[in-house]
């Protein structure tokens, strides 16, 4: 139910956004009544989430950029996105 398909286009729904944390440094995902500090991997994934790029394209872009096997990247991105989707911090267009 939460798994994101190859051609799904993930996006951050209204009320979810990424901001710079001026005091603590780094970037934060802000959502209704929640704040999640992003690590470098989370940032790299979410930088590519725009409602246009498909899951497959995001994975390929990350694999090319970081010269890593697509299978491994796909699993990591899937896990990360499913976590966000379960909290409605991320939705997909099919």
């Amino acid at each position, binding site marked *: *139910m*939460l798994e994101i398909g190859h051609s799904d286009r993930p996006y951050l*729904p*209204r*009320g*979810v956004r990424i*901001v710079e*944390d*001026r*005091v*603590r440094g780094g970037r*934060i995902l*802000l959502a*209704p*009544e*929640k*704040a999640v500090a992003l690590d470098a991997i989370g940032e790299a994934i979410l930088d590519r989430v725009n409602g246009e790029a498909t899951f497959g394209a995001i994975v390929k872009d990350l694999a090319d950029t970081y010269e890593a096997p697509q299978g491994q990247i796909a699993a990591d991105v899937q896990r990360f996105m499913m976590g966000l*989707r*379960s*909290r*409605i911090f991320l939705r997909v267009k099919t």
Partner: protein
Amino acid sequence: MSVRPPIAMLAELTHRCPLACPYCSNPLELLGKDKELDTRTWVRVFNEAAEMGVLQLALSGGEPASRPDLVDLTAAAHQAGLYTNLITSGIGLTPKRLDALEQAGLDHVQLSLQGVNAGIADWVGGYKGGFDRKMMIAEELKRRGIPLTLNAVMHRQNLDDLEETIEMAVDLGARRLEVACVQFHGWAQKNRHMLLPTREQTEAAKQIVAEAEARLRGVMAFDFVPPDYYAEYPKACMGGWASAGINISPDGKVLPCHAAETIPHLEFDSVRDKSLKEIWFDGAAFNAYRGTDWMPDPCQSCDRKEIDFGGCRCQAMAIAGDASATDPVCSRSPMHGRVTDLLADALSETSNEFVYRRLSRSA
């Protein structure tokens, strides 16, 4: 101990509210309009908060829509870079006002729910017609796509409607549902005989929430606050005293939590006299129970001391008579017997009347 800045601020803009919920988290001594901070002071506080690292702002009350300057305050908070969350009963909001709030940058609405129909909701809220008006606003929020959390405050009188409550939240398009079982401070403590759920209700609620959470994964997220009197260990109140959240009362007092004024020996600084930063880092009330050094045994030697932080200081005050005691809800507390007694008393009392939250006439 290094003190980190707060992440979230709860701004209680006013104690005024058309509703009179008998579990209101406002103090028994409600403040009148003449005591409230003005627009300019609130705006200064929002800016100070953002500068010191606050990310999330809850505009609350009372009913924040009772403040005529709600739109201006929302705009100022948004401009300060804060995530703005309106915590409301819906009463006092109109389509026109929602236009202005959206324009001002409002991020999210948390709508309270007293019951699943007018009969129970208007009885609990003490306000006839409130439920119908709330539903109109809920539909309006849905139509606009404003991110919505439904805050269902649950207790003995409405826990049996939990499944219906969950379906209602789905129908209203809520992204999150808080199943918030009443915590017993202030007004709720006065109404414990009416509000305390039975053990059977508590067990059923846990199962219903677990089942719904699995079924609705990806549709609606849950935050569940179970009734803590039946728990083995206390709740990690505020994630530890003065660790992440800061509260401002309508007259500008800065509190570690909304019930902190029930601890009589604490003195609270005001944003009228000092900067927020000074109060958060150096204020006596904030440092009173920060960290773990203040803890007595059994907490001090407990393997859970950094899990639940000794529980709730206000509950320790209310039940043990000592704010620095282990939360008596904890099964390891020497005072735990008092909770067992309270449960028995509250469930055996025969009354069918609420003590509604009202501004006292003398105030």
